[in-house]
């Protein structure tokens, strides 16, 4: 796995070459998907100017006398997002905060802030507003307009490729999670009179039905036992969330049966029938069964160690380790302390002795300060 040495090398590179060194080849940004707007074009000279603040008197040249927002279709309320004051020198950080606040409005696509130095110094927020969505169409939905997996695609107010991409990515993820393994949702924005036409294209593809769940590693009896605890079963549609839960359940079951080195690899999906059927391969390495070795208690104890061992710790040395039993014992200790007016954190740490297949547990009790 990754070593600390790797980190050290990376940090040294950063130290030696400063910020650019760690970047490697740098990000390869892609153009927005069929975005209808024109980039890097500030507001035009004839665009209207909205005056947000004006001293209406002469102020020294190093102070801002007036603040404007320039651009077409700029709503009046945008001024409330500009916090830079008048009658004071230019504050870069405040301007930067304003740029973020204006962009966060969602309707602003681009901003350039200019300082106009003439008889009076004017701070101009030159903005380009996003065009409105004038037509919205979803292609690929069933005749009733419904989409698979209960996915809902709502019409955005303005042509914001960031929002539309987030929406289509979420929809794709939801559909794939519900078993539509090859689902795609794409979009296209086209300039139209008065705004932009947005088309979303949904291609769900077939929904995968689980043909079989196959275990690699455990015995056939154990595989049957594990299968019984799973929600993913043959004959039903594949549900990613259920499969993720199943992996955790298998792992937890191992921990409760003393198999503390249990690992479950990411499930492999073997598709057939063009994605309409899927076989799930679960590779489980359960390892040996560990038994409890020494148990010790330390920290802010409020009674003799024997009391903790006798009254609260039910797992005895030699017994098969069970995480659930240990968790219950820990809860018992916490409740005991609470009944005596002491709120504590009880943190167990384990040390595996692989050669003897034993696990020592150290229980640290810490009073909350």
């Amino acid at each position, binding site marked *: *796995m*990754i*070593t*600390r040495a*790797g*980190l*050290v090398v*990376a*940090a*040294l590179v*950063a*130290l030696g070459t*400063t*910020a*650019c060194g*760690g*970047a*490697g*080849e*740098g*990000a*390869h*940004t*892609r*153009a*927005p998907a069929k975005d209808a707007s024109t980039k*890097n074009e*500030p*507001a*035009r*000279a004839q665009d209207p*100017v909205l005056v947000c603040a004006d001293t209406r008197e002469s102020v020294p040249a190093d102070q801002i006398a007036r603040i404007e927002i*320039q651009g077409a279709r700029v709503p009046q309320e945008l001024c409330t997002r500009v916090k830079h004051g008048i009658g004071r020198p230019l504050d*870069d*950080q405040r*301007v*930067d905060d304003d*740029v*973020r606040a204006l*962009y*966060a409005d969602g309707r602003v696509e*681009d*901003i*350039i*802030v*200019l*300082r*106009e*130095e*003439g*008889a009076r110094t004017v*701070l*101009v927020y030159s903005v380009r507003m996003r065009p409105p969505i004038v037509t919205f169409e979803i292609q690929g939905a069933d005749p009733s307009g419904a989409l698979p997996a209960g996915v809902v695609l709502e019409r955005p107010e303005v042509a914001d*490729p*960031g929002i539309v*991409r*987030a929406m289509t*990515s979420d929809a794709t993820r939801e559909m794939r999670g519900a078993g539509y393994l090859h689902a795609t949702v794409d979009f296209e924005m086209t300039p139209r009179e008065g705004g932009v036409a947005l088309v979303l294209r949904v291609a769900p593809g077939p929904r995968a039905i689980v043909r079989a769940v196959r275990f690699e590693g455990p015995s056939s009896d154990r595989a049957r036992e594990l299968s019984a605890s799973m929600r993913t079963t043959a004959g039903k549609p594949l549900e990613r969330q259920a499969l993720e839960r199943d992996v955790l359940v298998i792992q937890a079951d191992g921990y409760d049966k003393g198999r503390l080195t249990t690992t479950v*690899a*990411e499930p492999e999906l073997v598709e057939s029938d063009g994605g309409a059927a899927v076989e799930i391969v679960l590779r489980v390495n359960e390892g040996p069964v560990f038994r409890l070795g020494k148990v010790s208690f330390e920290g802010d104890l409020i009674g003799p160690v024997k009391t903790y061992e006798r009254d609260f710790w039910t797992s005895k040395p030699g017994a098969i380790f069970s995480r659930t039993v240990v968790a219950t014992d820990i809860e018992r200790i916490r409740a005991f302390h609470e009944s005596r007016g002491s709120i504590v954190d009880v943190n167990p740490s384990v040390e595996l002795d692989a050669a003897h297949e034993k696990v020592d547990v150290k229980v640290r009790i810490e009073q909350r300060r």
Partner: protein
Amino acid sequence: MSPARITTTFLLAFGAMVAGSTPVRAEPVRRVVVDRIVAVVDREVITLVELRRRAAPLLRKLASVDEASRTMAETHMYRDLVNQMVEERLIARRARMSSIVVTASEIDAALDSLAQANHLSREALLVEVRAAGVSEADYRDDLRRQLLLFKCLRLHLAGKKVSGEMNDAQMQEASRAMMEEIKRDVFVEVRL
């Protein structure tokens, strides 16, 4: 480097951003770009002010370069820096989604580890850092970003078949693959 020089560089590097936007006013005015959006990552922006701040130590290094090559070097530096900042935002986004954080004590531990690797005390390492024109706060920030990348990478590799320890080339490849995966679902636009 004076603010005027930075402004000139940006006008050269990014084209005449304000051309055509001269307002109709009676008196002659000079328009100076104070800030602008240089990149968008998902719903967040990277601004010129932020970029200039990050570029300051790099510009100090370039000050010794001759005038003719400096403009070109600065243009490349800004482009690389924006791309790097975009990747950092993507990593930060992934970390937020996966509830990954970097604590102050982890940064301290990384500092100590670096100092030890260079046979220095932490204080001596920070003296070297400051001598290189980087403040302690910026250096800690840099370490925090690297640790965040490291943790995201570890999460990315969890469940994948990785045999033994990875060498630097494998780590870089894994990092590249992770960035590609992260970018797939995120809107990224650089406006240089």
